[in-house]
């Protein structure tokens, strides 16, 4: 009797194991290769919606790679929205893979944790061509504690915030855009639009721009001035500039130039709906052309700042080699080829010639429907822009303009400095919460800064603002000292 009950229980427990065993077929096959002249399979995780033709394209890619570096690549895309959580779990679980897309603070944190391989040595051997091809500002900006942990995509290294205008309305009322330098200069135009165009919201909701280099992001108080004293961190909300800018914004809000729910709205103001007059955005060379193309009407931009190389503009897209990689050298060989070999780069990005795109006589290309439907890969998350073929309607000097843009850019004060927030973690957590409460309302002008800005600063002080400022300054001085 008892025996039978034990049996029953054993059965329950074993069903699980049996079921698991049935389906574990693919786990054993994945990490073969690399020895005995067998091509090594490089596992590559990158961002974007998984595409139908990925296998087809990578069959071609692998044919080429086997010849070149005796390796094959398995690319797995993870959907945009799932990316943050899923990639973090995979990294924390120590899942074996070779290359992973990463960016911004994720890159910094994971590199500090030791999830990525430092690639300085690899760059000097396997990645020599790559090192020559990539803009040095991109590589230097991504040094963490003196080491490079990933291959940045060679694209625009700088960021330039611009005011973008609806060109139809600019022409209609004959506005002179050359006069626009600051937020205050927008006033007369906004007024005209508000009075004469009923279906148009004068300002597509944006947060007022302040000329700072942020240690975290624009919501947080910690910032280094881009102009003037570039060596000291300040509380950006405790400046006259913040007060006057937010005041202007508040007067715009009161005048009805912004939507009433500006502070809380998650509206993304899609370009293709023509219901706005001015908006703010990050520019790159020929951005107006791209924007006009996707909006299907003309837009025109005016810079709000000089192009500047920020930490987050150089770490927008990075391929890191995982610490769990069994063959980092092969991974680097692949990255090297991907960033320097025009055939491979175009194949991975655009698909197979004649199937996904066609080549014109003058060397430019055009997408075929199959590229949009079945192999729509995000260009920015793969690699070097400058070896890509140009589209038929691209300006011929597109990549030259990119290079000019990069060269013209000035480095931001903290370019290459990565703050380690561990010593002040709890202060930062409470400051983040306070900022989430105040910043959106202030920066969209929804509340009166005379009343709320002092309140905000008082709360920040109570939450330990000074301690964090001191810590940032200390780490910054250390870093600065090592630079010389």
């Amino acid at each position: 009797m008892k025996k039978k009950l034990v049996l029953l229980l054993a059965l329950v427990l074993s069903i699980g194991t049996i079921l698991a065993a049935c389906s574990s077929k693919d786990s054993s096959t994945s990490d073969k290769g690399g020895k005995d002249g067998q091509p090594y399979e490089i596992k590559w995780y990158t961002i974007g919606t998984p595409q139908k033709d990925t296998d087809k394209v990578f069959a071609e890619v692998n044919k080429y790679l086997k010849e070149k570096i005796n390796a094959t690549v398995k690319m797995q895309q993870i959907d945009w929205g799932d990316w943050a959580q899923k990639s973090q779990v995979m990294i924390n679980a120590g899942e074996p893979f070779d290359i992973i897309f990463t960016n911004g603070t994720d890159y910094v944190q994971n590199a500090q944790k030791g999830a990525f391989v430092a690639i300085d040595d690899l760059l000097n051997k396997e990645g020599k061509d790559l090192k020559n091809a990539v803009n040095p500002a991109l590589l230097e900006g991504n040094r963490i504690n003196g080491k490079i942990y990933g291959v940045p995509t060679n694209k625009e290294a700088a960021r330039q915030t611009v005011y973008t205008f609806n060109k139809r309305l600019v022409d209609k009322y004959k506005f002179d855009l050359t006069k626009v330098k600051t937020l205050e200069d927008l006033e007369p135009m906004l007024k005209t639009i508000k009075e004469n165009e009923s279906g148009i919201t004068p300002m597509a909701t944006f947060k007022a721009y302040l000329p700072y280099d942020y240690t975290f992001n624009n919501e947080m108080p910690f910032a280094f001035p881009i102009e003037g004293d570039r060596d000291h961190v300040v509380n950006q909300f405790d400046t006259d500039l913040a007060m006057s800018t937010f005041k202007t914004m508040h007067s715009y809000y009161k005048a009805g130039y912004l939507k009433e729910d500006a502070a809380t709205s998650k509206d993304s103001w899609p370009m293709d709906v023509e219901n706005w007059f001015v908006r703010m955005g990050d520019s790159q060379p020929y951005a107006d052309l791209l924007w006009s193309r996707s909006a299907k009407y003309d837009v025109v931009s005016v810079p709000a700042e000089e192009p500047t190389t920020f930490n987050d503009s150089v770490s927008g897209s990075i391929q890191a080699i995982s610490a769990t990689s069994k063959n980092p050298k092969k991974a680097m060989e692949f990255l090297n080829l991907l960033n320097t070999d025009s055939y491979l780069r175009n194949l991975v990005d655009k698909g197979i010639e004649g199937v996904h795109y066609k080549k014109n006589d003058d060397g430019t290309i055009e997408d075929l429907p199959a590229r949009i439907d079945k192999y729509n890969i995000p260009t920015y998350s793969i690699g070097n822009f400058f070896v890509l073929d140009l589209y038929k309607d691209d300006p011929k000097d597109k990549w030259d303009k990119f290079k000019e843009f990069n060269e013209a850019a000035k480095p931001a004060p903290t370019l290459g400095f990565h703050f380690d927030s561990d010593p002040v973690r709890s202060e930062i957590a409470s400051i983040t919460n306070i900022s989430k409460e105040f910043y959106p309302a202030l920066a969209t002008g929804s509340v009166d800064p005379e009343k709320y800005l002092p309140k905000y600063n008082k709360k920040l002080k109570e939450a330990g603002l000074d301690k964090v400022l001191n810590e940032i300054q200390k780490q910054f001085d250390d870093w600065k000292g090592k630079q010389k």
Partner: protein
Amino acid sequence: MPNDLNQTQVSVVASQPLDQLKRGGAKIKRKKTRDYHELHPVVNTIFSVLLGIFTIMCVFPFIYVIIISLTSEESIVRNGFQIIPAEWSTDAYRYLWNVKDQLLGSYGVTILITVVGTVISVLMISFYAYAISRPQFKYRRFFTFLAFFTMLFSGGLVPTYIVVTQFLGLKNTIWALILPLVMNAFYIIIMRTFFMKSVSESILESARIDGASEWRIFFQIVFPLSLPGIATIALFSTLGYWNDWFTALLYIDDPKLVPLQALLMKIEANLEFMKQNVDVGLMQQSLFDTLPQDSAKMAMVVIATLPIAVSYPFFQKYFISGLTIGGVKE
């Protein structure tokens, strides 16, 4: 949905005695006889109105979703969500028709994991619970504790992920959607208590005397006797599988294996990403062109909930009888 149906029934029942009273009252010479169970007419009216309002509050969001799904995108951007939209449109459903392969595939996956998962889950839970509910099982304390322990302490996300992907190798298989949800310590404890309370030892004793094997006892005596309990955990586990999206987020990369709710979450998360990273979309517009707009999102919600909402009234009576049978029998 379940609540409103209940309430309409309640109010129908409550109003019946009132009619009888009117008819009866005429015969018995205006003598006011009041049923003890009857509510005062004023109270009754107030309750009916309150419950009516509550019912509308329950149904309204769903109706609103249907309306939004039929609003043109242009009108949503210009005027926001409206109860009576400025412009009607069936574009959202046309969009769904275009992605019907993915949608039907996901439907299939969801139905498959729900059916298979529920069957396995109910069997495993009741096996385990039955074993630890029997006093003659020597190690029942240990195994009860083993199950109970997992209710208090769990390994956490990362270790679970390691076990499922590296130890069991379930990544990108249909089993990754089924097995992690099969066992549930809480249901085991419920079923154990249920077995101990509703299946008396003497019944099992008599079955043994008649020569029934343990298998026969379990499937032909214990199982029918505890049907209400089993129906309950089957219902919970069905809902659990139908609504689960998190396991798919973790373990599934292959679009062919994404269940319906995970597909909805994915679209939602992608839209969120798009809003936070406007620049990515602006540089390569076609990347996000395939993402549905607000109306299409609502249309997907309609498609995903409609089958359950429509079929629920037909199954409701089984659920209710299943859940109450135990109480009246003894």
